[in-house]
């Protein structure tokens, strides 16, 4: 690979790495702060992606809108619609055991996929939406646009990171951790536990919507394929687990390192003999599945464990059976 090619490979890697970092930070708010299990990340991602795409794309007969609104408006709207979707899901299951939230969130994600595929008037079905703009489209053309987009993505990553950190250290974040670590005690001192959980879920969902919007703008094209649950939901979980749930830096490090592993296996797979190469994506899936099991059993606190003493979810230390 020539140096220029390598450089742009790196740019592409970091753009999607950044989008994954946002997803990971968002999941960290839900799971790391609030202990809420979201198995439908792809759904919120999709809502955000389609919202922003429909609002900013050029008018088209094949789908709703194309309102040519400015990209930042699209991204903000993506946060709002994804957040509202999150609110509806959480409102229903927040009182129940986390398994129910897992089922409901995965269900919402699947239904959203059905809507996207079936409702041609809205989304142009599986043909997808084209002509989605990027920010600053008028200023730069060609490959330089990728560099500019990289800067935009990482600016968003930094903003999201700062917001998440502020949330973590705020009284709100402290209460939330108290709720997560000892729900009964938090209830006993009069905290509205369910309201706090609902808020985390909505914030996380909104941020996932932002990530979805960025991905739509990056590709300039959006089809149901882009919201493949395995690539969005599953990979993000592995990233957060590997990086260290509860720690925002860990979320970013986890996103980049797992994304690096994922991308590198692709390079290797391309060098395999043809008969293996076609199946290489399944080998990668298998490896990611195994990586998750490994992390769950051996590295539960991740590369960068949570700062506060004692990892909240690890009840290793206070098992009641000898």
């Amino acid at each position, binding site marked *: 690979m020539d140096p220029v090619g390598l450089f742009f490979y790196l740019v592409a890697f970091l753009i999607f790495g950044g989008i994954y970092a946002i997803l990971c930070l968002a999941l960290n708010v839900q799971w790391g702060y609030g202990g809420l299990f979201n198995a439908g990340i792809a759904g919120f991602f999709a809502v955000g992606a389609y919202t922003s795409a429909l609002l900013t794309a050029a008018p088209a007969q094949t789908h709703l809108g194309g309102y040519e609104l400015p990209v930042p408006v699209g991204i903000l709207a993506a946060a709002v619609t994804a957040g509202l979707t999150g609110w509806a899901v959480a409102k229903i299951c927040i009182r129940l055991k986390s398994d129910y939230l897992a089922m409901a969130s995965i269900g919402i994600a699947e239904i959203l996929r059905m809507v996207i595929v079936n409702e041609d008037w809205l989304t142009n079905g599986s043909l997808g939406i084209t002509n989605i703009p990027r920010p600053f489209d008028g200023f730069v053309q060609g490959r330089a646009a990728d560099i500019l987009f990289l800067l935009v993505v990482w600016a968003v990553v930094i903003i999201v990171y700062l917001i998440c950190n502020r949330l973590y250290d705020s009284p709100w974040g402290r209460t939330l951790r108290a709720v997560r670590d000892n729900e009964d005690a938090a209830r006993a001192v009069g905290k509205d536990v369910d309201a706090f959980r609902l808020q985390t879920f909505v914030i996380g969902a909104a941020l996932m919507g932002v990530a979805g919007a960025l991905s739509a703008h990056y590709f300039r094209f959006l089809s149901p394929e882009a919201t493949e649950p395995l690539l969005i939901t599953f990979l993000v979980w592995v990233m957060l687990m590997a990086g260290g749930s509860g720690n925002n830096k860990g979320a970013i490090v986890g996103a980049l390192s797992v994304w690096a592993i994922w991308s590198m296996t692709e390079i290797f797979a391309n060098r395999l003999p043809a008969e293996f190469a076609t199946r290489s994506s399944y080998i990668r899936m298998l490896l990611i599945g195994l990586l998750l099991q490994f992390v769950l059993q051996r590295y539960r606190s991740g590369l960068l464990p949570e700062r506060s003493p004692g990892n909240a979810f690890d009840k290793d*230390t*206070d*098992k*009641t*059976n*000898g």
Partner: protein
Amino acid sequence: MSPLLAIDGLTAGYGGLPIIDNIGLNVAPGEIILIIGPNGAGKSTVLKSVFALTSIIAGSIRFADSEISRLATQKLVPMGIAAVPQTRNIFPSLTVSENLDIGTYAAPPRNRAEVEEKVLTLFPDLKAKLNQPAGELSGGQRQMVTLGRALMSEPRLLLLDEPTAGLSPAYLERIFDLILDIRKAGITILMVEQNARQALSIADRAYVLVNGRNFASDTGANLLANDEIRRSFLGGTRPS
């Protein structure tokens, strides 16, 4: 006679945090032994330790001359120990008859029909309810179901954790009478009880625990007559 159960220097608790410290206790065959003490004294922890439901930090627990402090709960029932927890001590969606049946799985009795007959003679109330889910019974009847389940394994030692907790005074009397009947059937009993005064009147001996340590031990009658014990643990007034 060598004791059926001998606890020596037992320190135990949950997750490395000791609740009881250096406890010693003996139960001879055929005795009813009572553990009393204020809330949080670690009474239930002693029973749970015998049943391998705590983490044991130090000390020994010997049952019929063999060390059991390292054995899993599952191994204890076949050896002849049965336990009745204080709360959540029935299988609510199983029928009364199925609840009793569960008692025989870990330690199949030699003659199942005979054991069931004996248990139903002790608890005649259950006869009419055999096919009813245990969760539909009253508190006192549930207590009989769980006692019956424990007896179905033909234990030599029965551990009872506050068998009268939450029961009406009428049932309280009946449960104490039943405990005497169970002893008459040759079963040794180690129990924790809040209604210390009544319990002392049926117990052979009792151990008083305070802050997880042995505080006193004597016969039931002597403890009832002891002014200091009465003032501190039995509510002060003279025994009736």
